[in-house]
């Protein structure tokens, strides 16, 4: 392999890298896709849900070949108190009509499939290969070093994930900062498909995506639950800086959440079969590095810190794929290696990725509102308790009762301040 020269080397066979390599291979380019995991997906963890529009952009109908899990027909929001829970369930069959809007996914399966698609188009996949560094000549990136070997190409695409060691080695950006990431931890819980469908009131090919707050010991963050085929993904994403101050270990907080009676009822009888952890970009547009390219190199996907999290919508894999597509289009269109980078940025605009990021650029500030993660969910549940409890005694008048609940949890000043902050974020 040492003497081979490729048109493009893509580092990292996740959604970004495989999307890029697939489009290039399909266009007849000689592409090497390098993956450090023994098989693609082996190093990856995501919630996870994939919005299908991204696959449709790469190739219409492609989603039908992908090993997707359940198409999401129920969107749920859960507010937890110590023992009580309030769940909002939005059922919308329009989300699964035609090309379903989104599917739950398991990365070991999805990533392995996608890299296989690259191979089917003539790309070369090298799994179990850690890239140690970049080859730089005359201020230009001209290849990679891996295990004592050198491999050369016109362009190196760094799709090496949120920790992007390559982006930093190339001097494009500095390391992540604690406030700009979330640390996600998750258990995969095996359960028979029929049990999942019955408990979540969905058909066997349909599923649920749930977000939850009030389960993080007051730390900025939230939980997620996705139904897969034969398993449930259950986890929490924490702001690590707040978690550090708070003092309880995050794995222990996940155990509390898992054992919450309202959650336990959904997973009871199941078996935890895997525990994973991963960092996620959390500040959206403001977290994207200023420099995502230099001559001979592009950065895509998590490595470029593309992410959108509104608290309800959590996106990463779709943006990764779109950025991979943008990179591939730039490489195909550019007449010289110098031209690739600027065209890549233009393509990110054209494919609307940057526009979407900008539209949500202040949204992460809602995660800095102090009472959202403890007092608000507690207040919601106490209000429900007041509204539904019957004990045969003369009840407090409705308005006064609700006001009492509010006052017990938050002051009027806090509510106004939080409300103002929320308004400004949106």
């Amino acid at each position, binding site marked *: 392999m040492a003497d081979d020269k490729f048109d493009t080397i893509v580092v990292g066979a996740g959604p970004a890298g495989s999307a890029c390599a697939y489009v290039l291979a399909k266009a007849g380019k000689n592409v090497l896709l390098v993956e*450090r995991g*023994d*098989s693609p*997906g*082996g*190093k*990856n*963890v*995501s919630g996870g849900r994939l919005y299908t529009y991204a696959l449709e952009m790469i190739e219409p109908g492609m989603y039908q070949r992908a090993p997707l899990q359940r198409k999401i027909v129920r969107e749920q929001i859960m507010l937890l108190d110590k023992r009580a829970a309030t769940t909002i369930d939005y059922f919308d069959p329009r989300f699964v009509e035609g090309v379903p809007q989104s599917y739950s996914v*398991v*990365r*070991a399966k999805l990533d392995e499939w996608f890299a296989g698609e690259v191979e089917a188009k003539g790309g070369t996949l090298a799994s*179990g*290969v*850690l890239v140690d560094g970049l080859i730089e000549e005359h201020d230009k990136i001209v290849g990679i070093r*891996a*295990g004592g070997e050198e491999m050369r190409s016109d362009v190196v695409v760094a799709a090496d994930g*949120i*920790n992007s*060691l390559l982006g930093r080695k190339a001097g494009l950006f500095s*390391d*992540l*900062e*604690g406030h700009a*990431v979330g*640390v996600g*931890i998750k*258990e*995969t*819980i095996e359960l028979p498909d029929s049990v999942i469908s019955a408990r979540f009131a969905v058909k066997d090919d349909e599923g649920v995506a749930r977000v939850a707050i009030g389960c993080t010991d007051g730390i900025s963050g939230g939980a997620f639950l996705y139904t897969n085929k034969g*398993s449930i*993904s259950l986890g929490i994403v*924490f702001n*690590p*800086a707040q*978690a*550090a101050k*708070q*003092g*309880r*270990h*995050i*794995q222990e907080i996940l*155990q509390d959440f*898992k*054992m919450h009676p309202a959650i*336990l009822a959904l*997973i*009871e*009888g*199941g*078996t*935890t*079969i*895997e*525990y*994973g*952890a*991963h*960092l996620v970009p959390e500040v959206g547009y403001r977290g994207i590095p200023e420099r995502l390219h230099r001559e001979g190199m592009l950065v895509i996907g998590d490595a470029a810190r593309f992410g959108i999290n509104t608290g309800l919508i959590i996106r990463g894999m779709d943006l990764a794929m779109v950025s991979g597509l943008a990179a591939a289009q730039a490489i195909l269109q550019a007449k010289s290696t110098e031209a690739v980078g600027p065209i890549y940025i233009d393509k990110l605009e054209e494919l609307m990725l940057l526009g979407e990021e900008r539209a949500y650029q202040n949204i992460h500030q809602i995660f800095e509102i102090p009472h959202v993660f403890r007092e608000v969910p507690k207040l919601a549940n106490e209000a429900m308790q007041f509204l539904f409890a019957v004990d045969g005694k003369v009840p407090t008048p409705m308005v006064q009762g609700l006001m009492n609940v509010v006052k017990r949890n938050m002051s009027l000043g806090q509510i106004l301040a939080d409300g103002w902050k929320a308004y400004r974020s949106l």
Partner: protein
Amino acid sequence: MSIKRLSPEESLALDKFAVDEGKPHIIVDKTICAHCTDRACLVVCPARLYRLKDNQISFEFAGCLECGTCRVMCSEGGVTSWNYPRSSFGVSYRTS
């Protein structure tokens, strides 16, 4: 089996690891950690590989989930080197 509270060790026992014996991919300098008061690593490492022993930080690289949280949260620079494990070593997820 049924759902139960898992310790960090029990959680990690579910995962598949190939440990690169004697070749840690993360290097921690305990003399730097000795001056650290934040010690975020103790609570934010998902695998709980940073522990306090006799008031000293101890670190075990086997069981690392390769997430990067310790490096990002390390305030005093005690994590002096952070890399991915060599090819074919480390964690291999099957269902995540």
